[in-house]
């Protein structure tokens, strides 16, 4: 029997706008994945510990405050330090196009900005599920 894909949807930083994060979390759950939602205002350290305890395969970060250039790479860096760099990372929120290449370099593999059709996120997960460790 295959392992169920687990996805963490997390909101780092001080931004409290979580409509988008809740929408994506619910839509991914409806698409058949097990989705864990952290709630708002999470520190990078808390998100990383959560990802490890929950043994997730993917994680999506949502941020609308503009602090993505600081917080997203901080989280991927912490994860690598904890030996969990194999978790596949994507992000979303208000993220200017010119920031995307640098974020991708830091290991945030896809950025979904407002208006992205949900199917695009699902396609991203399906296209990468073969990389999820077979345990």
């Amino acid at each position, binding site marked *: 029997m295959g392992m169920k894909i687990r996805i963490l949807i997390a909101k780092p930083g001080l931004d409290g706008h979580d409509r988008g994060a809740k929408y994506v979390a619910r839509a991914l759950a409806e698409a058949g994945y097990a989705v864990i939602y952290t709630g708002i205002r999470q520190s990078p350290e*808390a998100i990383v510990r959560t990802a490890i305890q929950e*043994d997730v395969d993917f994680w999506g970060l949502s941020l609308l405050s503009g602090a993505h250039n600081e917080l997203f790479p901080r989280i991927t860096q912490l994860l690598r330090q904890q030996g969990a760099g194999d978790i596949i990372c994507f992000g979303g929120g208000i993220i200017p196009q010119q920031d995307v290449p640098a974020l991708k370099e830091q290991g945030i593999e896809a950025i979904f900005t407002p208006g992205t059709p949900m199917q695009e996120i699902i396609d991203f997960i399906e296209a990468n599920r073969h990389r999820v460790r077979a345990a």
Partner: protein
Amino acid sequence: MKLAEKVILGDVRALGRAISLVENEHPDKHALLEQLAPHCGKAMVWGITGSPGSGKSTLIDRLLTHGESHRKLAVLAVDPTSPQTGGAFLGDRLRMQSHAQDQRIFIRSIASRGKLGGISSATGDAIKVLDAAGYELIIIETVGIGQSEIDVRSLADVLVLVLNPGSGDSIQLLKAWIVEVADVFVINKCDKAEANRLSADLDFFQSLKMPTAENGRRPVVITSATLDKGIDELWRTLLNCQDNLVANGSLRDRRARRIQEEISDLVAAKMQEELTRFMNDTGIVEKLSASSLGGGKSIYALRDEILSEFWKDFYKSQ
């Protein structure tokens, strides 16, 4: 190093992975549990159950702040799986995120996977993994449930039922079988109107002195998780309850019953699997059903016929 060894040493990443293995019926699951088994049997297990939105997650969040006497605490939070797609929105731990950085605390969300008893079938195995990893107290939060989902009873040493004011009159208590098996009642959201009324209803219920009740009158603790009221008392009540179970020997009985139930469930599930395979492989149901259509043999006669064929086949293959 093998996964089981890392789990026993308390490696959090290994622990997360090990729970995924038991949750997904991974082929390595039996070997893993085999290696962990000698390290199991030490943890206290508390179950927290109650209807959706009654405050179970928030109460656990508050209880965790009172757990400073324990070296390692874990929470298994079960949320429902969609019967349509198999997906799950696991949102319990959101209320407990203030403990996300506490090195002593491990929180894991579990999807119920179509099991209707308020927990998933993997919960029992996940408890074993945490127990082997040295967690002294494991709190299970069930899916929000109503009246009769009592599967958690067999897994927990101490079972807490969380009730809210305004959730119905004394008749609701009389109908709900979950109240039979709880060790401690919590009236949460005590700042709401009708908290006294619910307390009186519970008093009435407990005054009925059911002849089957294991421990007689059970404690009622009045709390407000969000206002942090009554949590000290709840924590002490639960420890006290656990101590009493040890002192009067019923903990041993309960755990013996738990193991017996787990074993018989496993055997029954295995048998069901064998039987289903036999019926699918041979198409025997389809073949024999014709002789029952439009009068003829009774379905019970056919059942016996199918079973006797199954046993023949079963012993041949042994």
